[in-house]
């Protein structure tokens, strides 16, 4: 009761701006006694504050102001630490001694959060702080100096400069040297005041060396770092089958994630949910999603960030260049979805010198749970467009829940002299890695279609390693970069935008983290891995030309936040990335000459 009054009065006074504003009546009594004590100015107390009833040494003023600022930030932060967290059993005494009082407040906020991390680090003792901390200062500044213009996001800094896979003990603290020392002296100076407090605030004394920690908490960058460390610690616990610890950590992550805003908290929430699913073995039901829901999410992804557009435009450019002289062309699309890729190709074909070819499109999609034929609807829309711009168009749709069910004979292919075939796959091939042998079967089917060009776009990440912890770490960096790029596209990213993206990407994250075996179909692999796989299956690379590069660059320039996106050319393949991290890669392939020769016989 007493403590709460003190809290509220002090909070309201802080709300009034800075410390010591508005003499509170509940402090009136303390004021009188303080006033009597402080007639003698040689006590070193600030006179103006003393009038209001607060005993603060003049020498401590700057330090106390700093701490009050931090406290205000913590309390006043909209998603911040709620006052309920402050209402544990620690009793605060003597709020007129601002210095110690604020210390107890701050250390109390830190104390409950300290424990899980500490227990993980084997009961690391922070009592011998100053030397260790100052020695770490130089280390941490190197580790966390990221050139990201968004100061509040710690993870991109880490993504750009990946942290070592295991969380380094002790957790890195980014502290400024000066407040550290100041606090040490203030602890010493206000020893006399501390003695007045009761034993329950010995946690404050014990926590006093930890008062260096309050600088850590309220800096939101630091909360970001803690989030990452806690996530990694949780994953490590799961890897070691220590599910109880993992449970505790996952809840902790959830709490920390609430105190962040924007992309950071979304990433953390997605990963925390995925980890929770893994711990409690509640696997998401893939079959409950309706197609329209998927389509809405994917359209939103298409609209709000350049990844899908980049994929479509670069693949189209490769197909266009392969089709320069053909009079009949046939594109087989493994992932038709809404068909957003094909209007641009049809327009480019319409403006081709020499006139447009006859354009045949075979779209493959999964069967719908509600039995609507969305493929036919897409085909009809494309046919309308084709008629408008004067391109002869034919469409065929195939429902296949599994790409490996497809046989070249089903597709009504015509001989290569008559018709040039292109196979297009955007973010589809990695799903085939879930079951052994599927990918080889599909690649040999593709070879059976005798394509002139095979275009493929895949995520540039290795989420298919055998060790869970490695996969988790990779995924954390990848999706952090992805979310960071989404947030970076302008200062005003609407909340609902982020939320839809959270759903869309959150499902991918859930699959990578929580599922195993054939259920885990988001088995992303890097370009290098795909290269070796395609090479050994009998495909030779086709280099994407400078036109594709130029178009991609222009497209990215149109997006807000275009400064962060980078198009890179990697041995003939194009990669789109955010700052230094490549995120998706487009590559094009043709049948290797040996295969063609063998096929001809």
């Amino acid at each position, binding site marked *: 009761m007493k403590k709460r009054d003190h809290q509220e009065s002090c909070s309201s006074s802080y709300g009034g701006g800075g410390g010591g504003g508005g003499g509170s009546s509940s402090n009136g009594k303390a004021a009188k006694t303080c006033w009597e004590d402080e007639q003698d100015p040689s006590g070193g107390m600030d006179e103006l504050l003393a009038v209001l009833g607060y005993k603060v040494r003049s020498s401590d003023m700057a330090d106390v102001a700093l701490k009050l600022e931090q406290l205000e930030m913590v309390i006043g932060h909209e998603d911040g630490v709620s006052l309920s967290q402050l209402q544990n059993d620690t009793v605060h005494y003597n709020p007129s001694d601002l210095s110690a009082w604020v210390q107890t407040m701050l250390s109390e906020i830190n104390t409950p959060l300290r424990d899980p991390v500490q227990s993980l680090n084997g009961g690391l003792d922070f009592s011998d702080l100053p030397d260790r901390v100052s020695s770490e200062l130089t280390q941490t500044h190197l580790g966390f100096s990221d050139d990201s213009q968004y100061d509040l996001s710690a993870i991109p800094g880490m993504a750009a400069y990946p942290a070592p896979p295991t969380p380094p003990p002790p957790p890195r603290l980014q502290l400024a040297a000066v407040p550290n020392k100041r606090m040490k002296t203030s602890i010493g100076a206000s020893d006399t005041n501390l003695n007045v407090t009761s034993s329950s605030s010995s946690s404050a004394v014990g926590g006093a060396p930890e008062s260096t920690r309050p600088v850590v908490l309220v800096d939101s960058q630091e909360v970001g770092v803690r989030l990452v460390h806690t996530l990694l610690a949780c994953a490590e616990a799961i890897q070691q089958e220590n599910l109880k610890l993992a449970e505790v950590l996952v809840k902790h992550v959830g709490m920390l994630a609430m105190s962040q805003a924007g992309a950071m908290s979304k990433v953390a929430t997605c990963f925390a949910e995925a980890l929770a699913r893994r711990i409690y073995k509640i696997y998401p039901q893939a079959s409950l999603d309706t197609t329209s829901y998927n389509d809405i999410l994917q359209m939103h992804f298409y609209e709000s960030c350049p990844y899908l557009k980049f994929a479509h435009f670069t693949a189209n450019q490769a197909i266009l260049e392969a089709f320069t002289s053909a009079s009949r062309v046939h594109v087989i699309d493994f992932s038709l979805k809404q068909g*957003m890729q094909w209007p641009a190709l049809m*327009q480019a074909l319409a*403006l081709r010198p020499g006139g447009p070819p006859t354009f045949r499109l075979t779209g493959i999609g999964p069967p719908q749970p509600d039995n609507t034929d969305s493929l036919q609807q897409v085909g009809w829309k494309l046919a*309308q467009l084709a008629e408008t711009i004067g391109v002869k168009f034919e469409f065929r749709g195939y429902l296949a829940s599994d790409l490996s069910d497809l046989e070249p004979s089903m597709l009504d292919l015509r001989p290569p002299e008559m018709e040039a075939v292109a196979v297009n796959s955007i973010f589809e091939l990695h799903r085939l890695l879930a079951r052994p042998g599927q990918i080889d079967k599909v690649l040999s089917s593709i070879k059976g279609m005798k394509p002139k060009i095979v275009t493929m776009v895949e995520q540039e990440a290795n989420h298919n390693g055998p060790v869970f912890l490695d996969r988790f770490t990779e995924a954390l960096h990848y999706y952090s970069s992805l979310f960071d790029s989404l947030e970076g*596209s*302008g200062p005003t990213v609407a909340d609902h935008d982020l939320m839809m993206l959270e759903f869309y990407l959150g499902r991918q994250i859930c699959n990578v983290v929580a599922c195993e075996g054939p259920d885990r179909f988001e088995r992303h692999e890097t370009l290098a891995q795909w290269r070796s796989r395609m090479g050994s299956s009998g495909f030779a690379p086709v280099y994407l030309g400078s036109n594709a590069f130029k*178009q991609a660059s222009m497209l990215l320039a*149109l997006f*807000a936040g*275009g400064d962060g996106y980078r198009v890179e050319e990697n041995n003939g393949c194009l990669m789109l990335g955010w700052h230094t991290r490549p995120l998706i890669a487009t590559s094009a392939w043709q049948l290797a000459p040996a295969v063609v020769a063998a096929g001809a016989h």
Partner: protein
Amino acid sequence: MTRDKEEKRRPVLFINDHADILLEILKRLDGRSLCTAACVCRLWRALATADSVWEHLCLRRIVSPPPSSPGSSVRPVVSALGGYRRLYMLCVRHLLTRLDRDPGGRWRTSSAWDELQLSLSLFCVDYYERLGGRFGDTAATSSLMFLCKPVNV
């Protein structure tokens, strides 16, 4: 005497009597001025909203039509998709402002024709999206929303 001279000095040319000259002038304006011109009077509106003027505006920066695609084949496609004025309003205008804002010219490895090609592709995607019939005539479809969003300069 002076009154006669003043009468002689009064301008004889009234631009609305010479629509061809007016058209030539309008062809050299930028988009914003053209829109303003369309608000002046009915004759100006008829001239300023004609697609040929907007075609000039869109193709102006292209010094010579590239041999690979003569201008005559572009026109029917663009007309079918909604016309040059619409192309300018939806795509070209944003492209020009976005690509111009980078004085270092990092993105300027492309030619004006490439920029027009990109505009055309985006225009086509927009048309395709409208085929669903869900959008009003002037509202931007979601695929072009990224062009309408304010850009972090």
